[in-house]
């Protein structure tokens, strides 16, 4: 059995989630391959090997960053052919989901999104566990035997554990990117600085703020808390609607789903639409003046108090205990 993992990298440095998914892949298959594209792709070979991958299929032609989705889908398809994999694991990230969805249509594959656990099952491919209906229910699903199984794995669902292997073998793919695949041109990539903070969907700690912050300035407090813990900043819809923080930080039903090790919600009531995006966090903590706020019903730890008092004191405590 061979599993192919789509790995993400930043100019050759493997993303944290990729290490987690390679670790998950080892539990499923005896041979783990990876596929990477873009400048520096081949430089991930050492890191893929360290996480137990035997081969990394690469295509570093800039065409894969100059045009969106279809060129990347062609690379994944070529890597599937080269590896003979029956299972494709990928980070459950929107743009990669597009790429995998495109491949899946061509291959009549099944796609399971947002897996938080994987079990191997001899009867026919992996069984994936996912949280559904805003985390109220847990479902196990699978791709039918005989079909390519594509499974999106959520960040932090697995701990990345190195396997101590030597560098993976590099297989340079020969991919023909035809004119049709160049139909969507990437004109510009605009980064809006979130400083040195981790991406919200990858972070293991998220400090989130809501209407209880009072104003946009309140988010400076949330940012300081996030920085003290090495985490990312999240927001409720009330806060993003008010323009206090950018929309891409919104957590919830119409925003992002996150599943960090620790979520801290301050000045957030815990409306059902917000909970739909965060209640699968491993640990939930809340700070709220209202002891009856619904967020306390799902919190592992809570402080009934004024965030403007509690957070600065908490930052001091964290700094004292970590210095």
């Amino acid at each position, binding site marked *: 059995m061979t599993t192919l993992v789509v790995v993400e990298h930043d100019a050759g440095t493997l993303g944290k989630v990729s290490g987690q998914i390679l670790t998950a892949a080892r539990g499923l298959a005896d041979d783990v391959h990876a596929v990477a594209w873009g400048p520096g792709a081949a430089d991930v070979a050492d890191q893929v090997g360290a996480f137990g991958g035997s081969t990394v299929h690469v295509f570093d032609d800039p065409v894969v960053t100059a045009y969106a989705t279809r060129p990347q889908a062609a690379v994944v398809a070529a890597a599937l052919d080269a590896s003979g994999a029956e299972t494709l694991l990928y980070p459950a990230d*929107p743009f990669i989901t597009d790429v995998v969805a495109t491949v899946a249509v061509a291959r009549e594959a099944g796609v399971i999104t947002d897996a938080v656990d994987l079990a191997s099952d001899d009867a026919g491919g992996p069984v994936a566990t996912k949280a559904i209906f805003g985390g109220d229910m847990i479902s196990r699903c699978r791709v039918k035997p005989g079909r390519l199984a594509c499974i999106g794995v959520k960040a932090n669902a697995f701990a990345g554990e190195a396997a101590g292997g030597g560098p993976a073998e590099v297989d340079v793919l020969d991919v023909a990117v035809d004119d049709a695949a160049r139909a969507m041109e990437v004109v510009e990539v605009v980064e809006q600085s979130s400083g040195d903070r981790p991406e919200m969907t990858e972070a293991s700690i998220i400090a989130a703020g809501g209407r209880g912050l009072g104003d946009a300035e309140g988010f400076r407090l949330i940012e300081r808390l996030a920085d003290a813990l090495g985490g990312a900043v999240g927001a409720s819809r009330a806060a993003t609607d008010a323009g206090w923080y950018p929309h891409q930080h919104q957590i919830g039903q119409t925003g992002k789903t996150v599943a960090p*090790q620790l979520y801290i919600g301050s000045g957030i009531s815990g409306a059902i639409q917000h909970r739909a995006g965060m209640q699968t966090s491993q640990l939930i903590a809340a700070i709220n003046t209202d*002891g009856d706020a619904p967020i306390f019903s799902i919190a592992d*730890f*809570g402080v009934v108090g004024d965030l403007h008092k*509690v957070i600065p*004191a908490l930052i001091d*405590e964290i700094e004292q205990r970590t210095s």
Partner: protein
Amino acid sequence: MDRDRSDPVLNANDEWAIEEALQIAERTPDTEIVALCMGPDEAGSTVRKALSYGLDGAIQITDPALSGSDAAATARVLAAALAGQEFDLILMGNQSSDARTMLVPAMLAAHLGLPALTFARHLEIDGDVVTAHRETPAGYQVVRATAPVVVSVVEAINEPRYPTFKGIMAAKKKTIDVRDLAAIDVPATQVGLDGSATAVVDIAPRPPKDAGRIVADDGSGEVGAKAFADWLVEQKIL
């Protein structure tokens, strides 16, 4: 799976898609907006809700065989329903509010051989050139393609309006073009539970969590902060 536990409602993210279509129509004369929905009979009320925003027409694909379709089967059906239709733009939500797979827009585009400008938080149309700002975790990516294209939108794109009373009354009179699988030439073997590539093994309620520890602060912030930091140490976060 029991998806009948609630009344069908218009998917929140599709309201932004409808709003964007309305705004485009306001800027571009002779634009016709048609809603397309695959869903059971009861989804008719959802289609009518969509019509009440002032859309020109609606197509509903409904057939008992469709029940249990996965995202791939859904995209196959939507693509078949669009075969032979003329359009420049397919606008969708980026995700449905129940399953949230985010698969259908790109899968539909793949079936139709069209570019998928997904996760758009800003859209510009100049002649037949469509430019979208696709939301990324760190900002956005500007992409450009020539119509026809598939676009999916995120919440940040606009502020949806409410249907007017006039719109609601007009929607009641509009006929929905209801079609079954035979009408769109899709074999029943390619849809529903049997025709889907994925299968649900089982579903269970999430195991209940132990009640959390809730501490009352004394107003200074110190008591709450100290207890919080102790808990972080206990959880090995610090």
